[in-house]
Each structure stands twice: as structure tokens, then as C-alpha cells.
């Protein structure tokens, strides 16, 4: 009989003491080396949970965990007991066929605003309505030549060189004396990552994140008859054969973009309950398990309740002044966003249930008929026709939730969390031709190793899988009877093994459908030895540090050594953990740290042509045995090279040496590089022509100059070595070439342009926080990820950092919780008789404790056969994310302008297809379904994103880094990098605030990214993912200046302010709480820059004003006209 231990695990999930967040359990237990798998680890835990009541029963499977606390299990909002039925075969999915979309002509409103902005289509587009206050960067009010500026991508009239944006604010790292006192900063960082994002991490049990809509708002779209030119039936889309189907079909409801308040991920640090691993032996552990559960439960239950309700109250009616004057309806179009309690709008009510199914109890209580009703009525909402030319305020006031697939309640309840697994189309088209018609891309976005606060872990001697396709048993299989189950991917009928008949949760026999594997769409198995090709490797960390003159000048070495010293006990690992160091300039230096030496011994190898390891076995040493030597080395390292005059950098040979050192075990190599490598193999030349930075012509050199790094990365991948690259350089470093080393070995790239310990304190702080997270976050070694999908679907292309080993298998030498992946899918065989299809991502990895584990995510989506259903299920954020990845590939393989055209075409084609095939009534204007209303905005944002923009000065490395980010970041963070969030912060109130851990977090509404929204009297916070700008208006409320910034007046605001003073005022606390909350939601540390009119960074801030025109790019309105023109052609 199987021993199945079930326990909840906190994000840290890996298993034992994982530090999910950065530092938490330093207590990690030490195991004797050589521990194999089946050990019981005890949860070393927890500091934080003592309060929770402890249910008694220790023992192994304590049902404890599972039952008493139903809501905990993240994916099931209702008691898990509800019996599972609804095998795919059943006709559950009856989705009423939809007629045409509802013709919606919104009531006319009085607001004239759109009027003036609608010139006949071809006239020269008026400058954005900014006019009077010209915050507008170099706004040229008149731009005659613009008339034909519609062709995108081609050069718009250059208007003078834009100010150089990325110039290092610290100045080029010149000769500065260096070495900050070694104490810089380490200590404080602890809060950054560890404070749990607010509470509820569970997907379903929480309330929907989105703030409500203004309860009273009426739709006031103007509908002037005059405006847009009449549209004719659409011509066949302008798809060009040459281009890959870039944007096939259109999409759907908005995905959540940013910090969705409640469900934000895993509280990273703090509350990780150690997974008590249950196998039979763990007596002592028992009590802890339940404990954990309850604890989490509390967490979840608490905040959400208090939070959301608060937000719904009267927050929105009082709009920021700026908002009221401008055009009409505040956010009229956001009906998609969940909580709209009192909504008066006709459309908004219906959708509610549809959107909210995830919102805990609500839907669960609906009677079936009601639920059916809600399904029906919701469809029209996603499809409500929006005339983009007339409705200006489309941006919802808060985060955008992921659309909910149109599945029966009981399936949806257990479906995978959209933060982990998300599809661009929540309704899968039945055939490829239907998909081609919709012109929306079909794909998946994954964040498979995300830190989860709740993760059931199962230890079982047999893992139940389909015998033909090897799918893991999951909630979407059907049980034909007690003894047989039918695979939901290949439809083979399998036997239920004997062990599986016993349910450890309820300790009952004969209920296989109640096993945790069948109740959770995300689950982790502890794998038995069949899943190992070799004994699990220990955690091995190798640091490869640049110590050339340039590197020493930047002073980064101190920071790295100090961070390592501080976190040396928090490195994930067990008693077998190994560590090693290599430094290099024009030679390679190894450090012998063998036990017994009185101090570290440096060994220099100057023959970089034929690199060898001087003493192969004492360079990587056991961390716990040699900790003192390691600490000695870290303390002395920064001083060792203080006076170096060596300017050359032999990165290639150093990497080869590091690879040799790691190849017997595998592990993680962290490379710190500060200049262009110019010696030995892998030497690179500067390819950037600074004069071309602002070129509107094609950008060259986006692809690698040499394949040395790629080949080395493939070798590394074969030996289970991942390379993480930290690039700290003021000059061009050819990231396009260097980045390959991380890209194909599943590493990550960090880039700190113009890092300098004294000149760029903001960058230093960011580096320090990132390092801390990097060193202490969870890590999985020798991993592979396989993505399976229902027969008929197949994987087209993968995006992310990895090596593709076969059509559905990714090789990931390391996997970390901050990595995202995207997959393009295609439909090879028609899905004719299917009502649902499933996708399963299985990640097999070795935890830092030397345990082989498998994390399995399964997602189920409905199949539809009408275009309108496809559009209704489109997830606009996921589509944007996938298009961004596709565009990056295109820029490298073809050209940047090609990629830009492809993105524009994606928007044109999908909207054209919608107009042609779905709309029954042809109205004038640029029509989009409500779920795609943000699509043109996001596409425009992408075109203006650092990675793809043209005509604005962008350093090549910045551009390439932005591209890396687009492919690598999970969607939630990615969306902020594409479309930043703008908040007004000078009038923060506690109204509608969230309450998390006793902290009150105000929730200002998200503003459109237009200078029009800025006012000189206010202060605005722009959250662009990696960086946060606080823009202070010239006539800013003096109260804000004194209470928050701590300065008497505007002129006293310092030029380079990157820290808010900790004042003891309510305003200051609110602002800091809000910024802190934004930061806590992501695994990297965004720097804060306070900006005033004269600031250097103002240009960067203004470039993020996506809806405005810049010298080289269209405004949002112009872009819409362009789309409209193309569509009606």
C-alpha cells in the first residue's frame, strides 16, 4: 500500500526547508551526506506559525491537513469532498451557441471629448490633446509630414536627436576610487522579498482582485454620428504569406496584469511551512503539518475578506480630479472586472458570475441552473462591442484578472491557477482553420516553478500515470468505475492500481477519485528511484568573478562578497552542498579551499589557450566543512585585487574552466562580468555604433557574433550546469552574444547598466536586493519539463531560457521560481468530438535537498467551434505576452521592422477577422470585443517598448536585455514592463485600501499613460516593472512635499532621490506602504526614482507615456486610426 503523505507546502515547496523566499529557514536541517530520497525530512520549521491551533493527530497522513481545512487547498474553493464527476465525456459543457454579438450602442453621453479628436481618417492626425501643459517631451505640435506617417515601422521623420536616455547617470565608470566600505547595505534587505504578498494565495478562495467599478457610472460613450468613416466589410486580412502567422487570432478577456492584490503569489518568504514529508515514518512531524495548514488558512481567510469589500466601497466615485474633467465615462469599459456590486450598467451584471467563479464561495453556491444562466449571459459581455475610437477610458482601475474558461463549475473550481498556467485562448478552437480564421495566436504561458503558498505533496511508491502517453493522473481524467480510469490526453483506459484505492486523506478505501492527485490541478510528487538517471546531485554553486581593473572600479566585488557572507547559511542545500570560486582578468585564478588549509590558496593559471584545473578536487568544496575558509576568502577577495591594473578580460577561458569544474556534478555557475570579453576564446568586438542608437532603420547585431557561448551553453546543459549572468557594465558588452550562455543553459540574465558603488546608489541597492533573492531563492537542479496536451494539439515553438531536447521536452539544468515560459501551440488534428482539452506540464527536478520531485500542473479548457466563442475566450494579456516572445524571435531571425509589422498586423488581422466574421451588424468605427479592447493599446505599448522601439535612442544592450526579459519573465511581471501602471499618489487615502499584515495599503486607481493625466498639482507614480518613477509636479501639493518627500518646496526636491525618507506622517506611511507593496509582488527589486521637471530620467518617464505621440511613434489615437484604415482597406 502506498504511503501517501499529503501535506501542504508552502511555496517553498521544494520540500524541506526551502527558502523560498529569500531567507527563511536558515535552520535547514542537515542531513548526513548521501541521503537519498526517501528520507523523511522533518520540517524544520516554523518560526511563524505557532499560533495556529494544532490539530492533534500526528501520524502520517494526517488527514489533518487535508480535510479540516478545505479552503486551503488552493485550487478548490469548496470542500474538497465534493465528489468528482464530470468526465469529459459528459455533456457538461453545453455552451449555448451564441448568436451574434450583442449590438451595443451605448447610450449617448454628453461628453464631447472624443469629438475633436476624430479627424477624417487621413487627415494629419492632430497632436494629442495635451496641448496646454506641455509636459510633452519635445512635442511638435505641428507635424506636417505626418500625413502619410501611417506606415509603421518605416522611418518617421526624424526630429532631432532625442536626448540620450540611457546614459548612465553615474557617469561612465571612470576612475574612481573604489571600495565602499564593505558594510554597504547588506542587512536591511530582509523585508524585501519576504513579506508575504498579501494573504490569500489561493487562487480560488479569494476574492477577485480587481477593484470594482464605479458603482454608479453610466456608460457614456459618445456616439457622434460624424466621426469615423464608414466601414466596409472587411477585406481579407492583410496577412502576408511571408510572415509567419504572427497573429492569428484574437483574443479575450484580460488577463491579470500586475499585482493582483490577493492572489499574488506565494508569500515568498515568510510562511513556508516545511513540507513535512510524509512517508510513514514521520511521527514527530505530525503536529506541524496541521499547523501549517491552519496557518495558511488563516492567512487566506483574513485579508481577503477585509480587503476587497473595502475596496468596493465608494472608492471610485471620488475620482481624482484630473480624471473627471477629461473625457466622459470613468472606465466605462471595464465591466470585465469583477467586483461590481451595484453595477447599474446593463452589461455588467451578468458577467459577474462568469468572471468570478474563482471567487470563492460565490459560484459554488449557485444552483446549477443559475450557473448555466450565468455562463450564457456572460459570453456577450466578453464580446460586447466596443468602439475603440470613441471609448477612451478603457483601462480598468485595477489589475486585470485572467479570464475564466467557460467550463462547468466543478471543473473550473479545480482548474490550474492562471498565474501558473494560462492560455492565450481560454476556448480552444476545434480546427486549425478556425484558429487561422480568428488570427489570434494559440499558446500557453507558464510559470511552472512559481513559489506557491499551498502545494500538496504526495509521496507514493507508485505514481499513477497513463500507460501509453505517460500523463500523470489529474483532476480531469474520468473514472469509468472504481478500477479503471480514462486518460484525458490520449483517451486510453488504464487500471487503477491497488495502492491508489486507498485515500490517505480520508483514510478510506475505494475512493480513488478523492485522492489528492485527483483533487488538485497542481501537485508535487516525491519521485521514486525510477525517475533518476543518477543519484540526485548535491547543490553546487560556483561563482565566477571578473576582477579586472574595470570590475574593481565599479566596486561590485564588495557587494557580492558581502551578500554571500550574509546569506551563506541561507543558500538552499543540505550537508552535501558544495561551493567554489574562480576569478579572472587576463588569467584565471582558482581558490583551493580544502579543509585543513589555514587560509585559502590562490592558484593562477595563465595559459588561457589550453585551460586546465590545477587541483581538480579541492576547488569545489563542501560548504559546511569548509565554511570558515570560504568566509575568509570572501572577506579578503575585495582587497586582493584592489590595486590591479589588468584591464583585459578572459571570460571565455574562465567559463571553460568553470564548466570543467562543474561538469562532474552539475550545478549553478554565477558569472559576474563588467566589460566586453577581449581575450582568449569567446573574445568579442564592439559592434555597436552609437550613432545608430536612434536609427529608425533596422537595428543590426541583435543576433550573436559568435557561437562560442551557445556551444558552451549546450555543453553545460548536457552536464546539468546552468549559467547565470550578471552584467554590470557602463559600456557595450554584446549581451546578444554573451546572453546565449544563459539562454541555452536555462540560466537567467541580470543587467545593471552603469553600476557603480558610489555614483549609482539606486543601482547598488537593486543589485544587493536582487542578489539576496538570487542566493536564497529556491532552486531545482537537473530538471526537465515536459508539456503534454490532448491528442490533436501539438507544440509548435517554445520561448524562454532552456534547451529543447525533443518536441515536448525542455532541458533545464537549473530551474528557479522566477522563470517563465511560453509555448506556441498548433492544432494538428481536428478536435471534433471533444468538449474539453487538457494540457499538462510536468517538471521533474532535484531539490536542493537532493530529492527528486515532480511538479505537475494540469489545465483544462473547453473546445468551441464558433469564432465568436473563440473571441469571447481570448486573454488579451496572455496574447500580448506570447506575441512579444514571437516578435523577439522574429527580430533576431528576420529584422526588427519585420517584427514590428508583424505585431501591428496581429492587431489588424484579429480585429478585421472579428469585424468580418463575428459582427453581424456593421457599425462604423474601430470595433473590438470587450475582451480585446486593450489589444491595440498593448500592441502599441510593445511597439514603444525598449525592445522594439525605433527612432528613440536605445543602447543595443538595453534593447537586447529588454528582449531577454520579454521571453523570460512570467506574464504578471512582463505586463508591467510592457504597459506600466500609473497611479496618482499625492492624494492617497485609506479608502478601499487593502489590509495586509496589519499594514494598510492604499489602492489608487490605474491611470491611462498619457501626459493628459498628469497634473502639475499632483504627484504620480509609474510602476514599470523593473523601475518605479515618482513624478512630482511643479505645483505639487505642498503637503505631499513636506509630508512624504520631506522637503519644504518643489525646488528643494533633490535631483537624484531614490529613497523616500521615513517620515512619521500618515501620508508618508501610505506612500511607502504602497511602494513597498508593489515591490513585494515581484521577485526582483525595482528602483525608485523621484523625478522632477529637470531630471535626467524625465525622458525615460515620458517615453513610457504610451498613449502620447513621440517624435518617432504614433499616439494611441493615431494608432487606432491606422488600424481602422488598414482594417477597412
Amino acid at each position, binding site marked *: 500500500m502506498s504511503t501517501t503523505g499529503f501535506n501542504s507546502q508552502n511555496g517553498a515547496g521544494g520540500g524541506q526547508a526551502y527558502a523560498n523566499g529569500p531567507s527563511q529557514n536558515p535552520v535547514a536541517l542537515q542531513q548526513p551526506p548521501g541521503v537519498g530520497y526517501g528520507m523523511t525530512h522533518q520540517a524544520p520549521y516554523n518560526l511563524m506559525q505557532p499560533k495556529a491551533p494544532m490539530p492533534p493527530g500526528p501520524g502520517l497522513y494526517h488527514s489533518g491537513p487535508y480535510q479540516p481545512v478545505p479552503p486551503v487547498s488552493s485550487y478548490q474553493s469548496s470542500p474538497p469532498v465534493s465528489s468528482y464527476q464530470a468526465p469529459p465525456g459528459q455533456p457538461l459543457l453545453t455552451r449555448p451557441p451564441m448568436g451574434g454579438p450583442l449590438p451595443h450602442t451605448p447610450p449617448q453621453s454628453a461628453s464631447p471629448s472624443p469629438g475633436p479628436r476624430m479627424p477624417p481618417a487621413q487627415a494629419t492626425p492632430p497632436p494629442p490633446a495635451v496641448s496646454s501643459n506641455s509636459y510633452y517631451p519635445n512635442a511638435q505640435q505641428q507635424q506636417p509630414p505626418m500625413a502619410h506617417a501611417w506606415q509603421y515601422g518605416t522611418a518617421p521623420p526624424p526630429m532631432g536627436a532625442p536626448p540620450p536616455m540611457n546614459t548612465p547617470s553615474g557617469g561612465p565608470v571612470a576612475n574612481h576610487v573604489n571600495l565602499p566600505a564593505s558594510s554597504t547595505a547588506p542587512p536591511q534587505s530582509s523585508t524585501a522579498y519576504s513579506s508575504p504578498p498579501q494573504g490569500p494565495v489561493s487562487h480560488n478562495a479569494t476574492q477577485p482582485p480587481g477593484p470594482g467599478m464605479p458603482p454608479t457610472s453610466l456608460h457614456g460613450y459618445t456616439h457622434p454620428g460624424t466621426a469615423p468613416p464608414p466601414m466596409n466589410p472587411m477585406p481579407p486580412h492583410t496577412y502576408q504569406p511571408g510572415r509567419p502567422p504572427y497573429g492569428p487570432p484574437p483574443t479575450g478577456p484580460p488577463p491579470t496584469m500586475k499585482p493582483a492584490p490577493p492572489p499574488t503569489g506565494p508569500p515568498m518568504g515568510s510562511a513556508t511551512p516545511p513540507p513535512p514529508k510524509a512517508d510513514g515514518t514521520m511521527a514527530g512531524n505530525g503536529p506541524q503539518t496541521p499547523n501549517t495548514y491552519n496557518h495558511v488558512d488563516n492567512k487566506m481567510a483574513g485579508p481577503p475578506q477585509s480587503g476587497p469589500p473595502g475596496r468596493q466601497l465608494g472608492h471610485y466615485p471620488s475620482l481624482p480630479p484630473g480624471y473627471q474633467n477629461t473625457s466622459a465615462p470613468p472606465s466605462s469599459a471595464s465591466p470585465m472586472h469583477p467586483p461590481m456590486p451595484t453595477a447599474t450598467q446593463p452589461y455588467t451584471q451578468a458577467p459577474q458570475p462568469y468572471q468570478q467563479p474563482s471567487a470563492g464561495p460565490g459560484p459554488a453556491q449557485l444552483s446549477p441552473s443559475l450557473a448555466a444562466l450565468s455562463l450564457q449571459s456572460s459570453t456577450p459581455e466578453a464580446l460586447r462591442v466596443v468602439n475603440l475610437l470613441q471609448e477612451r477610458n478603457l483601462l480598468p482601475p485595477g489589475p486585470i484578472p485572467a479570464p475564466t474558461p467557460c467550463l462547468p463549475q466543478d471543473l473550473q473550481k479545480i482548474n490550474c491557477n492562471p498565474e501558473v498556467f494560462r492560455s492565450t485562448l481560454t476556448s480552444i478552437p476545434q480546427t486549425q482553420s478556425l484558429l487561422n480564421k480568428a488570427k489570434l495566436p494559440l499558446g500557453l504561458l507558464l510559470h511552472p516553478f512559481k513559489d506557491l503558498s499551498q502545494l500538496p505533496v504526495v509521496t507514493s511508491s507508485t505514481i499513477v500515470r497513463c500507460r501509453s502517453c505517460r500523463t500523470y493522473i489529474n483532476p480531469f481524467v474520468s473514472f469509468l468505475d472504481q478500477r479503471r480510469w480514462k486518460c484525458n490526453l490520449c483517451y486510453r483506459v488504464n487500471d487503477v492500481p491497488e495502492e491508489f484505492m486507498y485515500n490517505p486523506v480520508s483514510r478510506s478505501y475505494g475512493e480513488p477519485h478523492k485522492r489528492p492527485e485527483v483533487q488538485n490541478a497542481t501537485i508535487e510528487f516525491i519521485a521514486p528511484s525510477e525517475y533518476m538517471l543518477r543519484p540526485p546531485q548535491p547543490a553546487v554553486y560556483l561563482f565566477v568573478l571578473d576582477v579586472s581593473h574595470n570590475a574593481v572600479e565599479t566596486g561590485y566585488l564588495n557587494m557580492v562578497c558581502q551578500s554571500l557572507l550574509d546569506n551563506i547559511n541561507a543558500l538552499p542545500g543540505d550537508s552535501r552542498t558544495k561551493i567554489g570560486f574562480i576569478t579572472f582578468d587576463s588569467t584565471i585564478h582558482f581558490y583551493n579551499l580544502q579543509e585543513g588549509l589555514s587560509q585559502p590558496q590562490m592558484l593562477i593559471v595563465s595559459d588561457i589557450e589550453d585551460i586546465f584545473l590545477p587541483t581538480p578536487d579541492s576547488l569545489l568544496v563542501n560548504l559546511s566543512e569548509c565554511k570558515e575558509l570560504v568566509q575568509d576568502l570572501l572577506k579578503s577577495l575585495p582587497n586582493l585585487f584592489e590595486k590591479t591594473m589588468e584591464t583585459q578580460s578572459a571570460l571565455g577561458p574562465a567559463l571553460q574552466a568553470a564548466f570543467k569544474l562543474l561538469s562532474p556534478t552539475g550545478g549553478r555557475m554565477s558569472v559576474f562580468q563588467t566589460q566586453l570579453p577581449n581575450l582568449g576564446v569567446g573574445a568579442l568586438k564592439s559592434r555597436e555604433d552609437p550613432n545608430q542608437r536612434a536609427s529608425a532603420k533596422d537595428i543590426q547585431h541583435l*543576433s550573436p557574433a559568435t*557561437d562560442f557561448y551557445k556551444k558552451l551553453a*549546450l555543453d553545460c546543459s548536457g552536464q546539468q550546469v546552468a549559467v547565470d549572468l550578471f552584467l554590470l557594465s557602463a559600456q557595450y558588452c554584446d549581451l546578444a552574444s554573451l546572453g546565449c550562455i544563459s539562454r*541555452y543553459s536555462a540560466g537567467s540574465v541580470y543587467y545593471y547598466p552603469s553600476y557603480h558603488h558610489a555614483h549609482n546608489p539606486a543601482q547598488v541597492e537593486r543589485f544587493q536586493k536582487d542578489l539576496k533573492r538570487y542566493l536564497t531563492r529556491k532552486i531545482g537542479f537537473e530538471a526537465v519539463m515536459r508539456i503534454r496536451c490532448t491528442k490533436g494539439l501539438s507544440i*509548435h515553438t517554445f520561448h524562454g531560457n532552456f534547451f*529543447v531536447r525533443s*518536441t*515536448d521536452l525542455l532541458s533545464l539544468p537549473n530551474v528557479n521560481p522566477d522563470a517563465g515560459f511560453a509555448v506556441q501551440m*498548433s492544432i494538428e488534428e481536428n478536435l471534433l468530438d471533444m468538449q474539453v482539452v487538457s494540457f499538462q506540464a510536468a517538471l521533474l527536478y532535484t531539490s536542493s535537498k537532493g530529492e527528486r520531485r515532480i511538479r505537475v500542473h494540469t489545465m483544462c479548457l473547453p473546445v468551441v467551434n464558433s469564432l465568436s466563442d473563440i473571441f469571447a475566450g481570448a486573454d488579451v494579456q496572455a496574447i500580448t505576452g506570447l506575441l512579444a516572445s514571437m516578435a523577439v524571435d522574429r527580430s533576431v531571425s528576420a529584422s526588427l521592422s519585420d517584427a514590428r509589422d508583424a505585431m501591428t498586423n496581429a492587431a489588424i488581422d484579429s480585429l478585421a477577422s472579428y469585424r468580418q466574421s463575428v459582427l453581424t451588424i456593421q457599425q462604423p468605427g474601430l470595433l473590438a470585443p470587450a475582451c480585446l479592447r486593450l489589444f491595440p493599446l498593448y500592441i502599441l505599448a510593445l511597439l514603444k517598448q525598449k525592445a522594439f522601439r525605433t527612432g528613440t535612442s536605445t543602447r543595443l544592450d538595453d534593447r537586447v536585455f529588454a528582449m531577454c526579459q520579454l521571453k523570460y519573465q512570467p506574464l504578471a511581471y512582463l505586463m508591467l514592463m510592457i504597459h506600466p501602471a500609473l497611479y496618482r499618489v499625492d492624494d492617497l487615502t485609506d479608502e478601499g485600501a487593502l489590509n495586509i499584515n496589519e499594514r494598510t495599503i492604499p489602492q489608487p486607481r490605474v491611470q491611462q499613460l498619457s501626459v493628459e493625466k498628469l497634473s502639475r498639482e499632483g504627484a504620480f507614480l509609474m510602476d514599470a516593472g523593473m523601475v518605479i518613477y515618482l513624478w512630482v509636479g511643479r505645483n505639487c501639493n505642498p503637503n505631499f512635499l513636506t509630508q512624504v518627500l520631506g522637503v519644504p518646496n518643489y525646488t528643494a526636491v533633490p535631483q537624484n532621490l531614490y529613497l523616500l525618507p521615513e517620515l512619521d506622517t500618515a501620508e508618508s506611511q501610505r506612500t511607502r506602504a504602497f511602494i513597498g507593496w508593489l515591490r513585494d509582488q515581484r521577485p526582483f527589486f525595482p528602483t525608485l526614482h523621484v523625478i522632477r521637471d529637470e531630471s535626467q530620467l524625465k525622458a525615460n518617464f515620458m517615453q513610457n507615456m504610451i498613449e502620447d505621440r513621440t517624435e518617432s511613434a504614433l499616439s494611441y489615437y493615431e494608432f487606432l486610426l491606422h488600424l481602422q484604415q488598414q482594417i477597412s482597406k
Partner: protein
Amino acid sequence: MAFTFAAFCYMLALLLTAALIFFAIWHIIAFDELKTDYKNPIDQCNTLNPLVLPEYLIHFFFCVMFFCAAEWLTLSLNIPLLAYHVWRYMSRPVMSGPGLYDPTTIMNADILAYCQKEGWCKLAFYLLSFFYYLYGMIYVLVSS
């Protein structure tokens, strides 16, 4: 009936085309294995890459022979393929070794499909040219 240089060219081309047919079959099998997961892309690229240049050179070689033999029609039939080979090799990814295939991109469905299609087309072309050369050889032998 005389054994002319042209006849010699045809005979040589006949033999070499037979070799090219084997190359094409090998290519098709290799990509099929990739698609069905039997092989690791790195190994597969390592076996395929060394064969690319020999194939192109063989084809180039008998094109030159036909040129010398003034067989203009035959040459003109082969010119498009020759041009394709040149283009294909010019636009290959950045690589230090010879060859065309990059293990990091080869698994991309578009590229995989393209390579497979390329294999089939070449096989068809070589087969047809095989018979054409046979015919050409006999014709030259008979007519002279």
C-alpha cells in the same frame, strides 16, 4: 557511337546522383527521428552538419562538369538548385563549424517542417535527375 566527354559526365553524374539520393534519404530519416523524439538534437546536428558541404560540393562538381561538356540544358536544370545551395549556405546561422543546422533552433516546428520538406523535394529532384542523366547518357552515346 563514341565515348565522349559528355557521356563521361553523364555517367559520373549518374553515380554521384545515386550518392546524393542516399544523402537525401539520410536527411529525411534524420529529421523524422528528430520529430519523433528518438534522437537528441545535438547529436543529430552533429551527424548532419558534416554532410551538408559534401553534398553541395558534389552537386557543384558535376555542374562544373556539365559546364565543361557544354551540356547547357542539363546545366540550366541544375542552376536553380545550385543557387539555392549558395543562398542556403549564406544564410545559415552563426556557426563556427561547417554545416547548416543549429541544435537550438532545429526543434522549432517551422524549421523542422521546412527541413523535412526540403529533404523530400531534394529526393524527388535527385530521383528525377537520376533518370534524366541515364537518358542523357544513352542519348549522347547513341547520337554521337
